[in-house]
Structure formats: C-alpha cells, structure tokens
C-alpha cells in the first residue's frame, strides 16, 4: 500500500478500516540466496537495497527478537557527515545524501529533520582543527560553516560562553545534519524490503553457523536449519558472539553507552549541540524532551545498562556548557551495547570463510550510517566487491597498518 495524503483522506472517510499490517510475518523457508542475521537498522537497510537496487529477492532477515529492538530503537537519532579522514568522510556523506532522499525513496515518514549540528570549540587550536575538518567535509561534497562567537550567540544565546574552563569561541556547523525518527527508519526499511519480497523472520535466533571446509552454507536457528548461498552477519553489539560461532575473533570490544531524556519542554534547542571537549551532546525531540548523552562507560559490557559515574559525568558536561539544563528533570535513561572497534571505525567486509560476510564495529555512531551501511553491504553481497565509499572498511586493515583512527588514540577501544 502506497502512503500519501490522499490515502489518509480516503481512509478517514472509511473510518481507517483499510490500513494493513506494514510487513508480513512469514515462516522461514528452507533455503535463500542471502540470509541476513540481525533485523536492526543496518540489516533491514541491507535487505531493502539488496531487493530494490541489486535485484536480489530470495533474501531473508533473521531477527532474534522483534525488528528494531536493538540499537536502532535506543540511540539519540543524530545524523551527520562531519568526519575528517578519507576512509570515513565520503562514506558518511554518501549516507547523508541517502537520508535526504530516504522518505520519498521508501515512501515512509521517517521525520528526517535537517536542523543542523554544532560542534563547539574553546581554543585557537581547537578552532584550527575544526577549520581543517570543515575543509575535509567541503572537499567530500558535504557542507560546513565556521561560526564565530557572535553568530553562535545569536543561534544559541543560552550557552555558557564565559565558562572559566571551556570558554566558547565558536562552532563548526553542519546545517544539513540533524535528527531522524529512529524507529521509523527500521519500520520504513522493513516495509520496503517486505514489499520487494524479502522475508523478515522475527523471533528466530541464530544458534549456529554451518561452516564446512572453509565455507558457510547457512545457519542453524531456533526455527530450523536455513541454507543460504551467502550469510551476512549484521549484529553490531553482539558481533563477537555471533562470529565466535564460526571460530573468528574480531578487533572489537562490546561496551555500554548510556543515553538520557528529560521531561518534555517547549522548544529551546534549535538543533544538535555537541561539546566534544567535555563529551556531552544534546538535541530536542519533537515531543520536547531533551535527548542527550556523552562518553561510553569504558568497560566491556553486554548488560545494556551503565553505572552512576558516567551519569554524573554526562550531567556535569551538560551543566558546564548549558546551565539551564539543570532546571529540567531527567525522565529516563538507558544503555545500549556498542561494537567498539580498535580504531573507532567500522567494518563491511568478507571474512576468511567463503560465503560469510561481516558488517559491524560501528562504535557509538552506527545510526547515522544506516542507509550507507545497508547500501554498501548490499553492494558487497550482490557483487562481491566493495562499494567505492566503503573500500577502507576491511577487517585486515590493522595487519596492513592502515587503521582509520579519527581520534588518533590507537588500539584502545574505550578511548574512541
């Protein structure tokens, strides 16, 4: 069913009796061309682009719980393409361009809102670094504007410009960046993939990978054996657990990242504001809640909840840069599991096992990458060659001495 204003009008006259479930709930077939493990944003996007762009229709997405129940439903919804390095920035700008056309493409309201992202700077050295980053963004075809103190003050008068430790000198602004309704991304991709014939199989946990003689021929699941020519792992957060079924160790640690929402407020924050020096970032949801977060807790965890020390740290960051946040009450907070890679950058690659493909290592930045990750993974699966903008995301890049380390902190995942 195609959604449109006309459809809403006619359905209103019929008492909304004609709406149908947005995707089917099929039983798994015994065999597919491609089986995607993981019904999160990236897995569903991969299925969508495989079926829509790359002509693959015998595709299944296997999800342990219900689709979108992982990090695509528990992130802080920010999209941006403000990276520095060659291996990253063209990929994220490709993702931003896909975001811009996404709702028309999959005919679903994902509430893509290009309200802008501000990166604050506090010293001459930091401004120089942001000028350099802005130039890298412009060279990739993205947009970047350097705001001085006066322009930033006009935009965000509530910031603590004269903070003693971190006086605000200005910001790097990406006007095209913004926020997206995260659940709707999963639902929109699921609906689009389903319409193109992809089976989305929920409550189907993969319990084993069928690996023989260096080849993966399918998966064992709680709903039976499913054979496949290609098996695509896409389970960021649990990548190590799934790949361990094939005997592979990854350059990844799983860490917990917490996020927070305040009570609903009238509109106070124009876009997304990031305070990198203290690690705090904030935006305001359409419902009015301030959505904010900061650093990962910093220790291996699969618990999906964090500790108080990080809560305090994030709130101190908020108070440091935006004292008015102290007037808002914290409504809720939660944690999600991140694939923290050894250089802070992701992987979209084949593995040493034929027929087994890997997508993961997204650290705390996977949401913004969803469209490009799905598109590039679909490209790799369909054509067995990496997409042009994802060529650097190889598993062997550490052994080759070619990490993509935006922060320059080395192989220490909790510092990225």
């Amino acid at each position: 069913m195609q959604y449109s204003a006309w459809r809403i009008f006619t359905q209103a006259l019929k008492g909304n009796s004609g709406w149908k479930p947005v995707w089917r709930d099929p039983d798994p077939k015994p065999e597919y061309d491609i089986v995607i493990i993981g019904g999160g944003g990236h897995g569903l996007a991969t299925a969508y682009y495989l079926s829509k762009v790359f002509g693959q229709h015998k595709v299944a997405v296997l999800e342990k719980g219900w689709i979108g129940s992982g990090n695509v439903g528990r992130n802080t919804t920010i999209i941006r393409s403000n990276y520095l390095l060659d291996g990253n920035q063209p990929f994220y700008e490709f993702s931003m361009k896909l975001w811009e056309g996404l709702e028309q493409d999959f005919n679903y309201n994902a509430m893509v809102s290009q309200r802008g992202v501000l990166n604050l700077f506090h010293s001459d050295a930091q401004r120089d670094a942001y000028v350099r980053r802005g130039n890298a963004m412009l060279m990739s075809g993205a947009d970047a504007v350097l705001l001085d103190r006066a322009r930033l003050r006009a935009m965000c008068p509530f910031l603590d410009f004269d903070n003693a430790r971190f006086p605000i000198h200005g910001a790097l602004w990406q006007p095209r960046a913004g926020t997206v309704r995260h659940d709707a991304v999963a639902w929109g991709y699921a609906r689009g993939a389903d319409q193109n014939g992809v089976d989305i199989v929920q409550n189907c946990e993969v319990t084993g990978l069928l690996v023989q003689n260096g080849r993966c021929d399918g998966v064992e699941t709680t709903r039976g054996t499913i054979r496949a020519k290609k098996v695509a792992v896409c389970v960021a957060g649990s990548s190590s657990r799934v790949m361990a079924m094939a005997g592979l160790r990854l350059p990844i640690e799983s860490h917990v990242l917490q996020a927070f929402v305040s009570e609903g407020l009238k509109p106070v924050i124009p876009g997304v504001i990031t305070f990198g020096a203290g690690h705090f970032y904030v935006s305001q949801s359409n419902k009015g809640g301030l959505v904010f977060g900061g650093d990962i807790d910093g220790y291996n965890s699969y618990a999906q909840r964090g500790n108080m020390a990080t809560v305090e740290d994030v709130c101190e960051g908020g108070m440091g840069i935006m004292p008015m946040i102290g007037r808002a009450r914290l409504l809720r907070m939660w944690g999600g599991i991140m694939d923290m890679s050894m250089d802070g950058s992701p992987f979209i690659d084949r593995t040493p096992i034929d027929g087994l493909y890997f997508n993961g290592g997204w650290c705390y930045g996977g949401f913004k990458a969803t469209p490009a990750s799905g598109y590039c993974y679909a490209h790799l699966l369909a054509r067995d060659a990496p997409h042009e903008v994802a060529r650097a995301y190889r598993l062997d890049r550490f052994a080759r001495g070619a990490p993509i380390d935006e922060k320059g902190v080395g192989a220490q995942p909790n510092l990225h």
Partner: protein
Amino acid sequence: MIINHPLLGPRDAAEFIYKGDASLIDRPDGMAEGALAAFDAYLHLRDNPAGLHRELWYHEQGDRSWLVVTRNTLTHEITRVELARDVARAQGRGR
C-alpha cells in the same frame, strides 16, 4: 561498581582506569618467529565474551596498582580481584 581491592578493600570503580582483557599481560616475544602476526593478534583481536571476563584495571586515583578483575559482562558482578603482578608471577614472569 565496587572493586574489592586486595590491599585497600572495597573501592569505587570510578577511581580506576580500564585497560581491557587480562590476556594483555601476555605480551608476545618480539624476537620469536611469526612475531608480526602474534603482535597483530595481541594488539587487535579480543575474545570479548558475554559472561565471565578477566580484565585489567589500573588504580590511578589510589595506590596505582594494576588489578586483574574477574567480572561478569552480562551483570557487572565482580567475583574475583587479584593483583596483576601476582597473576604475572604465577605465570612465570620475572616482574
């Protein structure tokens, strides 16, 4: 989280810096055959288990000792804390 320091008693985890998997104690021999591959694995690859995990914590805001903490990554429950130097010596390391 509270880490029960073998010398100082229960201490808040916020006093510590987290390093990672305790296998980082076992630095490969740089002069051995295949040292390049061994160092790649040592530096970059991790077991990353869901469940019991032996890991290195550094008591930076305390006595600056390195600890090997056994912790459940699914529950954050800490079941064992040892001095890293005792663990290393038990494995035959000189210091």
